[in-house]
C-alpha cells in the first residue's frame, strides 16, 4: 500500500543548523498493516510522516501509495489518499468552524470543491450517527464551534475526520502525546476500534513503548534517520520493553540510546 524507497531529507543544508532528518529510509507497508513507530527525539519519525504526507518535497528517493507515485504531488493532492492526525490538537481542525462543517470538509477530502452546498441535510444526520462512535456527546453539539472543544475532543474529532472517507493510508503523529493520560487512552481506544473496523493501513508514531507493543501488527524503531529495527508477526506479539531495548542496542551498537528512548 505504501512504498517509501531510499528517501533523503536534509533541513537547512549548508548552514550551521544543517540536519539530516531522513538518511535513506525505505519502508513498505502491506494492505491493512498497522505499524507503530518509535524512536528518540530527532530520530526522524515525524519527518518520515511529513515526507509521506507531502508537507515539503524530499531531497531524493520516491514515495508511492497504492501503486501511485506521489513523490512530486503537493500536500493537498496527496490528501486524496491520506488521513492525518497531528500531534498538536489545534492543528487538525478549523477552530472557527462548526463541528459539522469540519466533518463536511473532511467528507470532501480529495474531491473537487464546487458550488454545491458545503453541507447537506442528509449529511447532518449521518454525522450525528458517526459522532456517536466517539462517545463524547459531540453528536448533540453539531453546530458548536470546534474552538470550544477540549484538546482531547478535538483530537478525537480529527481522528474521525481522517477516517470519515476511508483513506488508503492513515498517518498518526503522536496524536495522543498532548493529552492527559485518561483522554489519551480513550483516543487510542477509538483509534484501535476505527482501524480494526475499516482495516486501515496505518502508521502510528508513539513515544510510549508499551502502546507501540500492544497496538498494531508490526513495530519499527527509527534511529538517525533510518529504520533500525523492524519487528512483525509472532515476533512482535511476544515482545517486551526490555527485549526491545536490548535489540535496539544490538542493532545500533549504542547503549546511550536507552535513556534517550525512555525519556523521549
Amino acid at each position, binding site marked *: 500500500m505504501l512504498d517509501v524507497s531510499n528517501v533523503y531529507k536534509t533541513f537547512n543544508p549548508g548552514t550551521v543548523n544543517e540536519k539530516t532528518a531522513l538518511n535513506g529510509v525505505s519502508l513498505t507497508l502491506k494492505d491493512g498493516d498497522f505499524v507503530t513507530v518509535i524512536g528518540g527525539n530527532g530520530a526522524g519519525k515525524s519527518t518520515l510522516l511529513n515526507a509521506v504526507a507531502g508537507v515539503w518535497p524530499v531531497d531524493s528517493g520516491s514515495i508511492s501509495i497504492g501503486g501511485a507515485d506521489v513523490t512530486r504531488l503537493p500536500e493537498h493532492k496527496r490528501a486524496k489518499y491520506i488521513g492525518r492526525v*497531528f500531534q498538536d490538537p489545534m*492543528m487538525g481542525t478549523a477552530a472557527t468552524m462548526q463541528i459539522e462543517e469540519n466533518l463536511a470538509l473532511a467528507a470532501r477530502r480529495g474531491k473537487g470543491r464546487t458550488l454545491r452546498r458545503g453541507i447537506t441535510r442528509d449529511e447532518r444526520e449521518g454525522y450525528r450517527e458517526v459522532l456517536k462512535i466517539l462517545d463524547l456527546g459531540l453528536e448533540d453539539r453539531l453546530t458548536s464551534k470546534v474552538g470550544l472543544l477540549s484538546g*482531547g475532543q478535538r483530537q478525537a474529532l480529527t481522528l474521525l475526520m481522517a477516517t470519515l472517507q476511508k483513506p488508503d493510508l492513515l498517518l498518526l503523529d503522536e496524536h495522543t502525546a498532548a493529552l492527559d493520560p485518561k483522554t489519551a487512552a480513550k483516543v487510542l481506544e477509538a483509534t484501535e476500534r476505527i482501524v480494526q473496523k475499516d482495516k486501515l493501513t496505518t502508521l502510528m508514531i508513539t513515544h510510549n513503548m508499551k502502546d507501540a507493543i500492544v497496538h498494531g501488527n508490526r513495530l519499527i524503531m527509527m534511529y538517525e534517520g533510518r529504520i533500525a529495527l523492524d519487528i512483525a508477526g509472532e515476533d512482535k506479539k511476544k515482545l517486551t520493553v526490555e527485549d526491545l531495548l536490548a535489540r535496539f542496542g544490538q542493532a545500533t551498537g549504542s547503549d546511550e540510546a536507552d535513556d534517550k528512548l525512555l525519556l523521549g
Partner: protein
Amino acid sequence: MAFLTSLLNSMPGAAAQGLAWGVMAIGVYITYRILDVADLTVDGSLGTGAAVCVLLTLNGAPVGVAMACAVLAGLLAGLVTGLLHTACGIPAILSGILTQLALYSVNLRIMGWGTGGGKANLPISVDKYGLLVSARYVRDLALNNPLIPLALFVAVVIAVLYWFFGTELGCALRATGSNGNMARAQGINTNWCKVLGLMVSNALVALAGALLAQYQGFADVNMGRGAIVIGLAAVIIGEVLFSKVFRNFALKLLACAIGAVIYYIVIQFVLRLGLSTDDLKLLTALVVALFLAVPYWKGRYFAKKVIPAGKGGGAHA
C-alpha cells in the same frame, strides 16, 4: 439649533457614502476576517474600479456594463496580489502594497485613456450620462434617490456572499483562513483559495469604487488613499457594536455595512463640530488603532483567570 439642522441635513449624504463604503468594508471583511490576511491592494483597486467605470461610461457604455467591467478590473487586481503572494512567495502585506503602488500608475493611465498620457481626475456629469447613483438627489424623496440602489447593492452583495460561503468552495476558503494545515490535510488547495478570496474581495472594492465615483461625480487617483483603514474601521465598528447580537454570517456582513454608515455619520458629526477635513485621516487612523488595541489590552491586562478545561483546549478559539 443651526448645528442640529446642518447635521441632520448631512445625514442622507453620510448614509449614502456609508453604504457605498459598506460594500468595500464587506470586501475587507473577506480578506481580514475570513482569510486572515490584511490586503492593502484595496487602496489601489478602489480607484481602479472608479476609473474603469467612469471612463467606459464617458465612452458610451451603459452604466451597468461599465460597472461590470469595474468588477472585472477588481478581480484582476486581486489576482495579481494573489499570485505575488502564492506563486512568488512574497508576504501577503507586501504583495498588496506592490499591487497598490502599481495600480496608482495604472489608474492614471486608465483615466488618461485616449489622451496619450495619464490623468489624475476624471469628472462625469449626471446630467449627460445615465448614472445609477448621484449625490445630487440624495435628499430627494424620489425613486432616483441614490440610497435606494445603494441599499439594494449592499443587500445583493450580502445575499450572494452568504450563499457562496455556504458552498463547498466557500467552506474551503473559510477553512483556509481558519487553519491552513487542516485545509491542506483535507485536500484543499490553500494557495488557490487565497487567490480566489483576494479576487472576490477586490472585486467588491472595485464595485464600491464604481459606486462612489458615480455618487461624487468623478474618479480621482487619490480616492483610494487610506481605503483599507476606512474599511477596517467599518469592520471593527460593526463587530464592536453587533458581535453580541449578530451571530449569523449574513448579519455579520451587514454589521460591516452598518459600521461604514456609522463611521460616516461620526465623521459628519466631528466635521460639523469644527474639525478640519485635513485632519480626518489622522483621526481615522487613531480611532482604528485604538479599536484594534482594545481587544489586545483586554486579553492581556484584564483577562479573567479561567481554569482550562482540557490541556490546551479551546484557548485558541
